[in-house]
C-alpha cells in the first residue's frame, strides 16, 4: 500500500488527485491537504468580479466529491516537509495545521506540492483588497470588486465621472491575461449598464509591449502578414477607448492614485476611483527539515519559495536561454518521491525578455503556469507516481512547457449574442527558436481570433471543466 499526499486543491492539485485515485489501486491512499474547503474554477472569477456570476457558480465544496471518490480530504495548511522523517521514525511526513486547530503529521510515500501561489500584496505598499486596490484572485476578492463596481456605476448614474485603473500592481507580476480579461469585461459591462460615457479606463502593465502575457508575446498569420500579438491587443483597446501604460512597475498605491516607475526610470502617477491590480506571486513558504532537524528549505525551494524541480536553474543571460532549461518530469532533484505541479514549481527563468530600469527595478512579467499547463502537469505527475508505485524506478511521463501547447480563451464581454472573446492557441508555450526560427513557435498551431464563438467556447469550458472537477461520470474523457 502506498500513500500519496497532494498539497493543494487548485487546478493542478485537484487534477493530480483525481487521476492518482483513478490510476492507483484501491488499497493505495490519496490524501489532499488544502486550507480552502471549496474548489474554485479561477478563470471564471472574472465574471464574479463584474457581477455576472455569483461565487456559488464558480465554486463547489470539495469534501463530498472526495468522499464519493475515495480521496481523503484534510482542510489544513501545509507547513513543513520532513522528507527523511525524524529521529524517531525515518518515514517521510508533512506537518499540517488544521483549519479546526492543532497540528498533525501526515506520512507519505509520494508527495505532490501543488500549493499554488502566495498572493504578495505586501510587495507593493498600499496594494490589495485590505488596502487601496481590488483583486479577482479569489471569489471573495471578486465579490468585493463587484460591489465596488456597483458603487462606481451608481456614482456615474448620478452624473459623476469615474476613473478605472486595471492591470498589475508590481513590475514582476504574472497573470496579465486575467487582468486583461477583467478590463475588457469591465468596459463591456459599463456599456451594458449605460454609463460608459462617464468612465475613463486605463490599463497598466509591466509588459514591454501589449499582448506579451508573460510569454514574450506571440505571432500569428493575419491578412497576408505574420503579425505580433501586440497588434491584436492594441486594436481591442483602441476600439474600446481603453488607454494603456506599458513597461510600468507600480511602487505604491494610495487611496486615489498609483505611483509607478517606467523603464526609463521616470516616476509617474495615475489617479483612479476604482483600481483592480493583480499582485505578484511567490511560493507559499513551506519549510523543509532533515532527519536531524536541520533546515534544508534551500535544497527543496528557490529563494522565491517555489519548489526546485528537474529544471536548469543555472543563472544565465537570456541569450543562452534554451527550451531544455524547462522541467520535464517535475520531480525534485533532492528527493525522488517529491514532485511539484502547477504554479508551485520554480520556473528556470522568465519567458519574456528581462528589462531593468536605470534604478535597477526589474520590470518584466514572470512566466504564466496557470490553466491548461497546470492541469496537464498535474495529470503527468499523477501518471508518473502511479507507475512508480507499480515499480518504475523513475518518472515515466513528461510535460515540458517547451513541448506543450496551450489554448486560452479570454472573455471580452459576456452576452450570448453580443459578447466576444479572444480565442488563442500557442505552440509551444516556451518559444523554441531552434525548431521554429524567427518566431519561436509553430504558426500552424499558433493563432488568435476575436468573436462571439470565443464567448460560446468560454461558456462551454466553464461548464465542462466544473463538470470534470466534480468528477461526474465520464470526467476523465474531458481533456485538460
Amino acid at each position: 500500500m502506498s500513500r500519496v499526499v497532494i498539497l493543494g486543491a487548485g487546478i493542478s492539485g485537484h487534477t493530480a488527485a483525481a487521476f492518482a485515485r483513478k490510476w492507483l489501486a484501491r488499497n493505495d491512499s490519496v490524501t489532499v491537504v488544502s486550507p480552502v474547503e471549496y474548489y474554485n474554477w479561477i478563470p471564471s472569477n472574472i465574471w464574479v468580479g463584474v457581477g455576472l456570476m455569483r461565487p456559488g457558480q464558480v465554486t463547489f465544496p470539495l469534501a463530498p466529491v472526495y468522499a464519493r471518490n475515495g480521496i481523503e480530504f484534510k482542510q489544513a495548511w501545509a507547513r513543513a516537509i520532513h522528507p527523511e522523517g525524524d529521529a524517531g521514525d525515518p518515514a517521510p511526513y508533512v506537518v499540517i495545521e488544521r483549519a479546526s486547530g492543532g497540528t498533525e503529521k501526515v506520512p507519505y510515500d509520494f508527495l505532490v506540492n501543488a500549493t499554488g501561489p502566495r498572493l504578495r500584496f505586501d510587495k507593493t505598499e498600499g496594494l490589495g483588497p485590505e488596502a487601496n486596490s481590488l483583486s479577482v484572485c479569489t471569489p471573495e476578492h471578486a465579490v468585493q470588486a463587484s460591489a465596488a463596481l456597483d458603487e462606481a456605476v451608481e456614482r456615474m448614474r448620478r452624473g459623476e465621472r469615474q476613473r478605472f485603473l486595471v492591470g498589475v500592481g508590481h513590475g514582476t507580476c504574472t497573470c496579465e491575461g486575467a487582468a486583461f480579461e477583467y478590463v475588457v469585461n469591465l468596459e463591456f459591462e459599463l456599456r451594458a449598464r449605460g454609463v460608459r460615457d462617464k468612465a475613463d479606463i486605463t490599463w497598466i502593465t509591466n509588459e514591454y509591449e501589449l499582448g506579451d502575457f508573460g510569454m514574450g508575446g506571440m505571432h500569428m498569420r493575419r491578412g497576408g502578414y505574420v503579425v505580433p500579438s501586440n497588434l491584436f491587443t492594441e486594436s481591442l483597446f483602441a476600439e474600446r477607448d481603453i488607454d494603456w501604460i506599458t513597461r510600468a512597475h507600480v511602487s505604491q498605491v494610495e487611496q486615489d492614485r498609483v505611483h509607478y516607475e517606467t523603464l526609463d526610470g521616470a516616476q509617474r502617477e495615475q489617479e483612479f476611483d476604482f483600481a483592480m491590480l493583480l499582485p505578484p506571486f511567490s511560493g507559499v513558504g513551506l519549510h523543509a527539515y532533515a532527519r536531524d532537524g536541520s533546515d534544508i528549505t534551500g535544497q527543496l525551494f528557490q529563494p522565491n519559495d517555489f519548489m526546485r524541480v528537474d529544471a536548469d536553474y543555472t543563472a544565465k543571460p537570456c541569450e543562452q536561454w534554451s527550451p531544455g532549461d524547462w522541467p520535464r518530469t517535475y520531480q525534485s532533484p533532492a528527493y525522488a518521491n517529491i514532485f511539484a505541479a502547477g504554479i508551485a514549481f520554480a520556473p528556470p527563468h522568465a519567458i519574456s525578455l528581462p528589462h531593468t530600469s536605470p534604478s535597477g527595478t526589474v520590470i518584466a512579467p514572470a512566466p504564466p503556469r496557470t490553466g491548461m499547463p497546470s492541469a496537464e502537469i498535474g495529470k503527468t505527475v499523477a501518471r508518473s507516481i502511479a507507475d512508480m508505485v507499480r515499480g518504475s524506478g523513475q518518472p515515466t511521463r513528461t510535460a515540458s512547457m517547451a513541448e506543450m501547447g496551450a489554448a486560452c480563451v479570454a472573455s471580452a464581454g459576456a452576452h450570448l449574442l453580443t459578447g466576444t472573446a479572444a480565442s488563442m492557441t500557442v505552440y509551444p508555450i516556451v518559444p523554441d527558436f531552434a525548431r521554429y526560427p524567427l518566431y519561436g513557435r509553430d504558426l500552424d498551431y499558433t493563432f488568435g481570433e476575436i468573436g462571439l464563438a470565443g464567448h460560446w467556447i468560454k461558456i462551454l469550458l466553464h461548464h465542462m471543466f466544473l463538470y470534470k472537477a466534480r468528477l461526474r461520470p465520464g470526467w476523465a474523457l474531458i481533456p485538460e
Partner: protein
Amino acid sequence: MPGPDSPADRSPRSGAAAPAPESGSVKVTASSTPYATRPTRWTLFLRTFVPWQLWRFARINLKMIRIIRRSR
C-alpha cells in the same frame, strides 16, 4: 557563414528579436493615437454575425483539439 544582418547574428536566442534598448512608456490615449490598429466595420460585423460565428466555433474547437493532441 551568416552575414552581420542575418537573424542568427541579430538574435539573442537563435532567432528571437534582440532586446530593444530600455525605454520608458508614457500613457497612450486610445482615442487620439493614430497608429493603433483598429478593426473595420466588416470585421466588427463578422465578430457577432451568428452564422459566421457558428462556423468559427467549429473551426476554433478543432484547432484547440489539435493543440491538445499535439501536446500529448
